[in-house]
């Protein structure tokens, strides 16, 4: 029987009530008395020098409060980068300055050059048109491989080249891997592009800066996945505001998918300008601005080689990837193609030798950073595509080749420096074959052929790493932040609880799922527990939500804090019951003395904590509030197997998804309904990448896909219903909940199966097609068939 509350129950989401009635509180819904609006004048060329910027006419326009340019920010720190990668020669990456407003040079279309603060947004926009801006265009670099050739225009004059770093992993294995390739019985090579994407949360970014002159306190309301991180980065590195004078609030946030992790110029500007203008200052991004200022995702060009021995065992993997950084280093950009990508190259397979080379490159494009999956989709895509290609070259079944090479014993230390604690890749593949009815595929193919359509089946596995940790290890790898999470559990006198978490919900349903855990631990109703998140003023320092870490890391912190609560409440109960602490049991919201009918209710204990009349004051402080910081000892490793069936129209090249099945192992599951929803959304984004989405630039660095007219977002009629299962559960061994994280799996696991399926469909028709680069638009598929 499904549970109706606690861990494992599909509790309906409490936050839905406000979202369904228009009562949400998103950042753009916040308006502060006296606020002014800012409009950013952005560069319309990709690369150039600012020859002239005259704001005098704009300053005289109606409603204008003040006009800012890069000169106003010369004394201000630049935008910081939160991760320093060390290259294969032991040298630190090249790290360019990143100004709040462009000064002297512009380096990508959309870079803010000036900012007009005015009474209304319309007045600010009108005045921006009156700014006399002359930019002398310079040759732009857009293509990564061209950018690192001798004589290429440099994005940053003060760097030695456009190469940010040349990373080798594991560098010590380089020669051994090369030798394994020399001895291989078969080598499969695949060159591919992992297409540039834009995360596109439906809520555009917003920032509202406020300043209280009387107390010298700054407040920033912002669309962020991690308000504490923004407070630290902006306060310490950009504006020089100590944390105790800076509050960052991220209220209801309309989706993030990674792109709202990063600290952006507009946040720093609004905070700065609120003090400079002595007015609250608000910025609301338009969608067009979002396309040219939100950090983009993916954009790798890769050559992967897979060496096999004579028995088709994987012997070695060697990759060379060019990773686009864009014009500047976004907050965590350097970590994505390295530690979030190279460490995943073993996948689900026992390949003894792996070498990953990544060249990160500056170009005159919008900065690129983490987008749902961040490095892991890129690793999974190349690995699962090259395995499929190898199977076809060798004439073996792609599933059998995978099964033959599965890791089957855990813990398993990969040759790329991580240790998988648990998993059962055979079980997830077995479940996939059953759910997707793979044995019935041939009949379905014949039926499609009878209608003139080419049917293809694609399968892939994936492994991902969630809850990046521990802090001391990631510090050695170059992170300039810790990766713990925090929770304060405050029990009120009448027994209700408030959990203040450092993680942040922007669609994941923390307000519903987190209480399920505590309700189970104490035995009280979920409705007695409230989750507070998103405000640095009333939550402990935490790192926020990304990398599918909220439950595995933030939930674990909450469990630890609740354990402290229960331990103290047990002492109080033992006093009230006049029994030994070791005899006290907590069940169904009551403390009882084992083997007796003596008990005291949860509410009586909590009341005693705050009205400590009958209370062991000499041994125990009053009150019932505890905080825990949880720093995981390892990543978690969700895994799964996905299958996609497509039909290709041979006349037009149009691909339609006929069936999509996802079998995931997330370890223990707290709310199956929410987990399933996360997988649905991830699959939709993965199919979007595979078939529809492409962030395109022309050779001059002009962004060609800056609206929903040009960037193909998946719509309802592009997608089928999904078959999703997470009944294969190998619990994580090193966090108290045994959970692994589910937010990114769908986006990581789905693109290869779609492409594998299309290739399968075309080969079934005798077409000699081994690969098509994403997105598999009708034009590309049709061209490949000719």
């Amino acid at each position, binding site marked *: 029987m499904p549970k109706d509350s606690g861990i494992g129950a599909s509790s309906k*989401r409490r936050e839905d009530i406000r979202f*369904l009635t*228009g009562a*949400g509180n998103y950042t753009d819904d916040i308006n502060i008395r006296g606020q002014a609006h800012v409009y950013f004048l952005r560069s319309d060329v990709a690369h150039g020098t600012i020859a002239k910027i005259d704001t005098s006419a704009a300053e005289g326009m109606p409603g204008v409060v003040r006009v800012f340019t890069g000169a106003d920010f010369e004394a201000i720190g630049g935008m910081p980068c939160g991760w320093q990668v060390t290259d294969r020669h032991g040298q630190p990456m090249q790290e360019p300055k990143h100004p709040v407003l462009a000064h002297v040079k512009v380096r990508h279309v959309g870079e803010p050059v000036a900012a007009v603060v005015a009474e209304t947004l319309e007045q600010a926009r009108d005045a921006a048109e009156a700014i006399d801006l002359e930019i002398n265009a310079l040759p732009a670099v857009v293509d990564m491989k061209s950018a690192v050739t001798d004589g290429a225009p440099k994005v940053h004059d003060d760097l030695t080249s456009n190469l940010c770093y040349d990373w080798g992993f594991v560098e010590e294995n380089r020669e051994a891997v090369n030798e394994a390739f020399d001895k291989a019985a078969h080598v499969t090579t695949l060159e591919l592009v992992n297409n540039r994407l834009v995360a596109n949360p*439906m809520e555009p970014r917003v920032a509202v800066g406020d300043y209280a002159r009387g107390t010298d306190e700054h407040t920033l309301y912002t669309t962020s996945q991690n308000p504490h991180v923004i407070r630290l980065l902006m306060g310490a590195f950009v504006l020089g505001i100590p944390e105790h004078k800076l509050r960052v609030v991220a209220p209801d946030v309309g989706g993030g998918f990674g792109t709202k992790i990063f600290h952006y110029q507009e946040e720093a500007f609004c905070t700065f300008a609120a003090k400079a203008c002595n007015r609250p200052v608000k910025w609301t991004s338009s969608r067009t601005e979002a396309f040219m200022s939100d950090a983009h995702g993916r954009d790798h060009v890769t050559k992967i080689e897979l060496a096999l021995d004579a028995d088709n065992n994987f012997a070695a993997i060697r990759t060379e990837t060019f990773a686009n950084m864009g014009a500047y280093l976004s907050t965590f950009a350097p970590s994505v193609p390295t530690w979030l990508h190279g460490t995943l190259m073993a996948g689900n397979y026992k390949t003894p030798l792996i070498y990953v080379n990544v060249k990160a490159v500056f170009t005159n494009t919008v900065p690129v950073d983490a987008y749902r999956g961040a490095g892991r989709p890129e690793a999974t895509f190349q690995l699962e595509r090259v395995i499929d290609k190898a199977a076809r070259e060798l004439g073996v079944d792609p599933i059998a080749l995978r099964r033959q090479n599965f890791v089957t014993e855990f813990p398993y230390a990969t040759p790329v420096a991580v240790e998988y604690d648990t998993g059962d890749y055979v079980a997830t593949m077995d479940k996939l074959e059953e759910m997707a009815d793979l044995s019935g595929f041939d009949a379905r193919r014949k039926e499609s052929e009878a209608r003139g359509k080419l049917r293809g089946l694609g399968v892939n596995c994936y492994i991902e790493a969630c809850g990046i940790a521990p802090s001391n290890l990631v510090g050695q790898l170059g992170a300039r932040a810790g990766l713990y999470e925090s929770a304060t559990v405050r029990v009120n006198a009448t027994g209700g609880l408030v959990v203040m978490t450092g993680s942040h919900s922007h669609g994941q349903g923390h307000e519903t799922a987190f209480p399920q855990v505590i309700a189970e631990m104490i035995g009280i109703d979920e409705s007695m527990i409230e989750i507070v998140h998103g405000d640095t003023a009333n939550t402990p320092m935490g790192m926020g939500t990304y990398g599918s870490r909220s439950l595995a890391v933030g939930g674990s912190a909450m469990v630890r804090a609740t354990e402290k609560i229960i331990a103290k409440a047990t002492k109080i109960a033992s006093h009230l019951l006049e029994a030994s602490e070791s005899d006290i049991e907590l069940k169904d919201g009551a403390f009882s003395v084992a083997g007796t009918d003596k008990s005291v209710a949860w509410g009586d204990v909590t009341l005693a904590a705050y009205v400590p009349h009958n209370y062991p004051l000499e041994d125990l402080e009053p009150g019932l509030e505890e905080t825990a910081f949880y720093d995981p000892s390892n990543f978690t490793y969700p895994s799964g197997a996905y299958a996609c069936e497509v039909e290709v129209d041979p006349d037009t090249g149009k691909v339609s998804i006929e069936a999509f099945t996802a079998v995931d192992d997330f370890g223990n599951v707290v709310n199956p*309904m929410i987990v399933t929803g996360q997988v649905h959304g991830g699959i939709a984004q993965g199919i979007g990448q595979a078939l529809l989405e492409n962030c395109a630039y022309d050779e001059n660095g002009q962004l060609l896909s800056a609206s929903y007219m040009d960037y193909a977002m998946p719509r309802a009629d592009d*997608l089928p219903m999904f078959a999703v299962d997470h009944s294969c559960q190998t619990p994580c061994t090193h966090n108290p909940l045994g959970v692994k994280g589910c937010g990114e799996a769908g986006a990581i696991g789905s693109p290869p199966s779609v492409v594998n399926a299309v290739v399968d469909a075309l080969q079934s028709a005798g077409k000699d097609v081994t690969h098509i680069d994403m997105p598999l638009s009708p034009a590309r598929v049709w061209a490949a068939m000719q």
Partner: protein
Amino acid sequence: MAQVSMTVNGKAASGDVEGRTLLSSFLRDSLDLTGTHVGCDTSQCGACVVHVNGEAVKACTMLAVEAQGAEVATIEGMANPDGSLNVIQQAFQDHHGLQCGFCTPGMVMSAAALLKENPKPTEAEVREYLEGNICRCTGYHNIVKAIMAASGQDVSSIAAE
């Protein structure tokens, strides 16, 4: 500036607007009805869908002055008179048809318009109708399911939410 008057969720509403003020801005900024969201600037995303004289309209495609004298319904007016969720809203909660909630008001308003003109839509009809509403969180699976459930159809054969 021009004065504009209309009926919003059954109540008289008026305000001074510029000629270029969009209905979406008037609802959000002048009437503080912030449930109507703006997710794009090309009338593609559908987060701002409201009903004007009973028809689903993207409030970002219409000037406030064009709604002079109109009957406008927004997400804030959709709940039952006792404040409980109406059948569509309830189906969205029951079937997990929303995550971040940003596209949700537009989805609910579009769903209401669809069910008014087609009380028992097929899955394909729901998907086609939602062509003008973009959701980035749900993959649409549970939205489609919720709308079909709200129409009174048995959705138990559709994979679990």
